[in-house]
């Protein structure tokens, strides 16, 4: 057990190291020069002024030292929680910009992923035993998972926001409000949150429900279920076992979902103009703000690693088969 976890932690640390290195490398080889971009934005017309300003910005961004130094500096800064300065929102520190956006993304993704997982598994398990439910959930589920996400999001925004006017179309909160701890503001947050949340919930829900239904039916036909039936075990007991065993692959699925968490929100945040990490990434790309891009990606990588680590632990707790794999087992 100890060795297993030690090995896991080592693997995660290695992954982290590689991810940070790649993360540092990639933007540097992307086309475009961020400093030049800033200079054009401030529309400096005097060519004599460009050189010193360029020097100044290079210094601010730490680009005036050799690459290897930049790399080491990057690590040193990173370990202090410092990810540089945003080009797009100059001179806001990247960490600050990201921390402003993260709550929105998390508030969107965590409830939608967890709730859709929970509800999908519940409904899928029920569908596996009630015919009428099966006949409605299954086609609905397939329809939901087969529809491109973009489509669902746009249809929701169009029908419930633009046509019916029940929900706001875009943004994280009403433009005429300032963030504050007031009920009015909170209410506005909630209203803006609902549609993007619903769109994410719906697509994921269909997939979970179908997966669970199929897994349960598969488990109910497994040998152990047949044996229990031959020994006269009540349906209830067999279903309980089947449910538990069917949940294991769903748990892996959940881990993967949590893993690709932010990629999923990218489209949502763009469609609904929601001010989370996804939109931040888009902005960073559009403005060639590679410090911000790095910061966002790094945040995603850390999220993925943490999610997977947690799921690893949960899996060990619920599935004895992984546990024996760790100790070598008694053959």
């Amino acid at each position, binding site marked *: 057990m100890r060795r297993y976890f030690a090995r896991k932690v080592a693997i995660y640390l290695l992954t982290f190291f590689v991810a940070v290195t790649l993360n540092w490398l990639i933007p540097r080889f992307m086309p475009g020069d961020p400093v030049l971009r800033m200079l054009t934005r401030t529309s400096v017309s005097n060519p004599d002024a460009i050189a010193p300003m360029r020097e100044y910005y290079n210094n601010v961004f730490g680009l005036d030292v050799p690459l290897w130094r930049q790399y080491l500096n990057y690590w040193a800064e990173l370990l202090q929680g410092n990810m540089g300065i945003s080009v797009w929102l100059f001179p806001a520190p990247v960490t600050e910009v990201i921390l402003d956006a993260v709550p929105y993304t998390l508030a969107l993704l965590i409830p939608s992923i967890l709730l859709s997982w929970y509800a999908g598994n519940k409904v899928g398990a029920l569908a596996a035993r009630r015919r009428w439910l099966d006949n409605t959930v299954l086609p609905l589920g397939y329809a939901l998972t087969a529809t491109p996400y973009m489509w669902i999001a746009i249809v929701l925004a169009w029908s419930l926001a633009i046509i019916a006017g029940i929900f706001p179309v875009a943004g994280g909160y009403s433009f005429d409000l300032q963030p504050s701890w007031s009920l009015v503001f909170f209410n506005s947050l909630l209203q803006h949150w609902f549609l993007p949340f619903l769109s994410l919930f719906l697509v994921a829900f269909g997939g979970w429900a179908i997966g669970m239904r199929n897994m349960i039916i598969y488990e109910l036909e497994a040998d*152990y279920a047949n044996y229990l039936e031959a020994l006269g075990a009540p349906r209830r007991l067999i279903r309980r076992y089947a449910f538990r*065993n069917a949940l294991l692959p769903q748990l892996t699925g959940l881990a993967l979902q949590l893993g690709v968490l932010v990629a999923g929100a990218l489209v949502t945040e763009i469609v609904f103009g929601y001010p989370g990490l996804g939109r931040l990434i888009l902005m960073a790309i559009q403005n060639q703000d590679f410090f911000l891009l790095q910061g966002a990606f790094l945040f995603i990588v850390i999220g993925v690693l943490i999610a997977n680590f947690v799921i690893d632990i949960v899996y060990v707790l619920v599935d004895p088969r992984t546990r024996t794999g760790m100790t070598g087992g008694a053959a």
Partner: protein
Amino acid sequence: MSLRVDNLKVYYRTLRGDVKALDGATFTVADGEIMGLAGESGSGKSTLGKSLIRLDTRMRLVEGGVELDGKPLPIGDQDAMNAYRFKAVSLIPQYAMSALNPTRKIGKMISELLGARGVKYSEIKPELERRLDLVGLKREVLNNYPIELSGGMKQRMVLVLSTLLNPSLLIADEVTSALDVSTQRAVAETLVEFRDREFVKSMIVVTHDISLVYQIADTIMVMYAGKLAEKAPADVVVNAPRHPYTQLLISSLPEVGVRYADRKLAGIPGSPPGLLNPPAGCRFRDRCPLAFARCVEEPPFVEVDKNHHVACWKAQ
């Protein structure tokens, strides 16, 4: 008489029609009898075995009845049958390797199963442990997950569990085919021991390996294409079979009594008829070297000698 089966017909419903996998079986198994049930793959052995404990959703009881210890066994009624399962009729399935829920500790699973059947685990645990000792399993296996046991250990575990409530009838389906030769022998001997200790009254040991079952069975029944071909005491079946199919079967064995690992019933030219629309008359007719005009009529399964039943016109 422990078990009496009367003209039992069980078919599989398929889109193309009924597969007549068990087409009129009449036989008895006495108290204390271990009956080997032999026949090549697809002859209906498992269908017969399953019929006696649990019809699956595709199986249909067409005709006939079963009596156990003088009382009718409601095999066609899933709910009524439940009371008899495990307690009166029990099963060691063909898939014993995967018969235990992989995510439950064995002891916990047993206690949940027993609890659901109205038996107190704590009361039966001492007996369970005695039987584990008997088959050479450590008591700690109850704290293990199935995956922690080897194939032979799982087989013995299932054997102990299936017989824990001292059923009148045990059906053991191909219990040895997944094991290596030495383990096969041990499991077969354990079956005999369980009978001798009266954990089980009578047994039907399904196998395609006559040479193995010959060593433990009191009687052997041979099936062919969904019908009974012959039933007689084990040494009579092996040394003086009367049905042409049994004769070919026995002569294709190198030497009965010697262990030949996983000896398949093969070597008879031709193949058995499909059971969707089997031909009328003797189903062995196409392959039978002795076939003659009368064989277009179906030969009845009759007693030609004491305790020796054969379904063949030539044997009467």
